[in-house]
């Protein structure tokens, strides 16, 4: 309990109340994993570290969207860290991975996406059994769990492309701000003006 000397410090502030927010609903994830609307059973799984054949995963609640369309995951205690042998995870993924990409790809590319090697930042959506691992940051670590197949349920959607887009969007908004319809119209008008000038010069 903080004493009088620290009364000037700002108080703890809770994060957004996730329960009141709607889930993030990428179409393929909704179709494959949440047809019953039970988004709480879906997890957001990130390959956070690859080291010496061990994959460090962070398993978070499925994100929700705040009023401005931003992803909300919750506090650090709501995510769990799981370590697993990378080769075993890859083996499980070879049987369960379903790549989600926005553009049409040919069969060869689709197969390459399905069996590609792990990379830090790879992100998956899946329903799971309760995973092993440590809640929150840090922790005593412990040995990697033997088989992520014990807790990952098929299918495992590879949503890396959407997740990268979401991360890049949030970073750009945080550091450069956002703009609204009005500025978009101004930009559009200026582009049209430039194009018209260029057309006149060519003529």
């Amino acid at each position, binding site marked *: 309990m903080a004493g009088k*000397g620290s009364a000037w410090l700002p108080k*703890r502030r809770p994060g957004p109340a996730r329960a009141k927010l709607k889930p993030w609903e990428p179409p393929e994830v909704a179709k494959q994993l949440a047809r019953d609307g039970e988004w709480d059973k879906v997890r957001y799984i*990130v390959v956070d570290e690859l080291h010496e054949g061990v994959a460090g995963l962070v398993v978070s609640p499925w994100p929700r969207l705040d009023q401005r369309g931003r992803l909300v995951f*919750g506090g650090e205690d709501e995510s769990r860290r799981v370590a697993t042998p990378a080769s075993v995870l890859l083996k499980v993924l070879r049987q369960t991975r379903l790549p989600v990409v926005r553009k049409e790809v040919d069969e060869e590319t689709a197969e390459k996406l399905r069996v590609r090697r792990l990379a830090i930042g790879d992100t998956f959506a899946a329903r799971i059994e309760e995973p092993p691992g440590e809640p929150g*940051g840090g922790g*005593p670590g412990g040995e990697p769990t033997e088989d992520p197949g014990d807790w990952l349920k098929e299918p495992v959607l590879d949503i890396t492309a959407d997740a*990268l887009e979401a991360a890049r969007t949030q*970073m750009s908004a945080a550091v450069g701000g956002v703009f609204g319809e009005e500025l978009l119209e101004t930009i559009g008008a200026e582009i049209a003006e430039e194009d018209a000038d260029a057309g006149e010069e060519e003529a």
Partner: protein
Amino acid sequence: MPATDVDTKLLGKTGGFLAACRPTDLVYFTLNVGDGDTQLLLLPEHEKGKRYCMVVDCIRAEKLFKLIEDLADTGVLGEVEPLLALVVATHPHDDHISGMAALLRRFGNEHIGELWEPGYYHTSGAYIEMMRELEDLDIGHLQPAGGTTRYLDQVRLTVLAPGIVLRNKFDSYGVNINNASIVLKIDFPAARILERGPDRTLMRLGSTQTLILGGDAQTHSWGQVLTDFPQLGPASTAVTDALRKSGGTTPLDAQVFKVPHHGSKHGLNLELVEAIHPAISIVSSVHAGGKYHFPHDVTQAALREAIDPISSKPEDHHKPDPELNILYTASREVKGARKPADVGPLGTVGLLVGTGGRQEIWRFGDEPTDDVDLSKGRPMRPEG
């Protein structure tokens, strides 16, 4: 006994930490948070009872909050805005930033001066949460690269990494997330001008102390650092001496080295530690291995050899780590020579860095899940 453990004889009596903190000290805490990093620096008082702080990485935010509250309750931190002059998220790994969103939310516009992060985006929930909170703040923000320099009162910060070449390869070209780490060099005291009435004198203080906080930078990044910050010997000629020029520079020489990446074998090499030649090295990791088996033996060997070179004297053995001031947040205190009994954790490291070259090491006996109890601090004295 494991090299990370410390004999009880090296520890002083409990108590006295607060009395030992001098107003002119820079106070540096490496919190025992398990496999991850949370660091708090209290800058020297700029007026009576007023210290700005820096936070470098944050997991287990509640543990950090409690420590800051206790430091305020005990008068070490007085009311000042912004309390956290600078917050640094070295890189977006979960074990460095999982508590950052809570920190930004709590301390907000009034109590955070600036946030630095490397500009390397990551898909994790912790990263996206941190950046969402940043979007809601109106504070200074910087994505620094090697060479960036910032003065905070008597403390000079220099960003050693990521070098600009690495920075320009973020996004598409496979820079490892660890190599995105912001590596900070902290020089203290940085003020060099003595003012007596109208007289000003440029002082060449021999007591400036340097801390290098290594993030999770790997040897690829350190290689760039060695290029960008060359160790230059003095060019001593009659002319240069007369002009007081060319005194040489050893930019990587440091008294305190926060060992990169929890003691990973990719976090340093012998030449790097030789260039730094730290008086005190600190490793933040779990005890007895953990999932990545940090700290790695080869890292410990490089640290020992750089500090206590014996390779050309094969009959010699390195001194024990505590004597070399290689400190581990995961250390256990043990008693007895033959069958050492576990007394308990040594936990969080507190360093008092003085203006005149003084360094004091304090340990707080906390497990990763415990709060830091300032009244339980014990000084650690190297043998011999």
